[in-house]
């Protein structure tokens, strides 16, 4: 099952500058594992020490937040789109330092 993973600008440097990746996997968690094999460190940016999605990041399967589905166990099907959405502060010059 290949799904499309959309990577936000803020994380693109970690995946070789790519915006869209095609990744195989049966669940969202499995897809993140595959992603981490290819680009080590990705998972650490998205998940905390307990393996939960970090609180400033949301992962969507199509238009639904996986928190309201089965979290990382959410099954993914061919053609699904996974979007990673980190909190953004911007609007101007100063942001977090």
């Amino acid at each position, binding site marked *: 099952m290949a799904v499309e993973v959309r990577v*936000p*600008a*803020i994380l693109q440097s970690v995946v070789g500058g790519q*915006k869209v990746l095609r990744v195989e996997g049966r669940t969202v968690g499995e897809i993140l594992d595959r992603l981490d094999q290819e680009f080590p460190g990705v998972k650490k*940016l998205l998940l905390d020490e307990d393996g939960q999605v*970090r*609180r*400033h*990041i*949301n992962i*969507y399967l*199509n*238009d*639904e*937040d996986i928190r*309201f589905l089965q979290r990382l166990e959410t099954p993914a099907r061919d053609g699904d789109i996974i*979007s990673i*959405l*980190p*909190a*953004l*502060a*911007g*609007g*101007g*010059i*100063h*942001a*977090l*330092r």
Partner: protein
Amino acid sequence: MKMPVRVYIGTPLRRFTGNLARVEVEARDVAEALDRLSARFPGLRAELFDEAGQLRRYVNVYVNNQEIEDLAGPNTQVRDGDEIAVVPALAGGADGAPAAPAREKLVRLTPEQVIRYSRHMIMPEIGGTGQRKLLSSSVLVIGAGGLGAPAILYLAAAGVGRIGVVDFDVVDLSNLQRQVIHTTDAIGRPKVESARDTVRRINPDVEVVPYNTALTSANALDIIKDYDVVLNGSDNFPTRYLVNDACVFLRKPLVDASVFKFDAQVTVFLPGQGCYRCLYPAPPPPGAVPNCAEAGVFGVVTGLVGAIQATEVIKLILELGESLAGRLLLIDTLAMDFRTVKLRRNPNCPVCGDNPTITQLIDYEAFCGVPVLAQS
């Protein structure tokens, strides 16, 4: 298509119509009907219109007993069988003219305003009533920066009566690539003053209330409570959480957006329907997210997004259409891709959930682990 409509002539004007109380004319809209009427009874024109050709302020015009200010002004369409009433205000209702309908406590439009807002008022979705609602409304804009600048311009042009602007910063040369309300000669001036001056030149109907201060836990509730809607153009996480919590506590609609490089996120939080903390319970750890100065920001994206925010604000005021509440709009301007994903209220949200644990404003700098630097 032109329709025969009846025009009721108020008593004081009948000396110009040969004492006729009712005259039939063919017209598509009120303006045309009055023009026909004046052509037929030349003495009437000077009574109805000023030198600039505008309907005199003291002349009230009704279509089927509704004042045209509540419809589309002079552009109000008329159909076969409609009755237009032309009644000088001085005559009141005493001469048997249709009684003025019960009025909301809204401002009256001047003839100049009827022209200024005619492209709004001609749309039945807005009309005179909607325009007067806008003029009686108030919006607080947090930050006169990338998002706030275009948003304020459009809110002012649309005739939002009172716009509060919170920003403690001064205009910097590096702001001008996107903060379109500020001009080169404003460099070094407080942004709120620069914004106020620009608005004055665009629309003198609008009152700008400048708050040349940082928004803090000490002043946020006091400032926000006086406004109908809040537009968030802040650029840092502490202010973002502060504005969110204050809007939840005060039950104010919040039109929120953030921008990063070529991408943006926009949404609307309505009281009781979820908040920023439902979406992002906690900020990223300091250093996890590069700032705009490091990463850059595509100037025109802030214009696009600020205009979308202004759109949502005006829709809320006019109760038009469907807002972005319950949806998060994701914009990727490089792909020119717009998508929405669902956004839900979290019943366990510490601020807006079923059993909130945060019931007053907190120390947001400590919460985010950073100092509040600016909000433009």
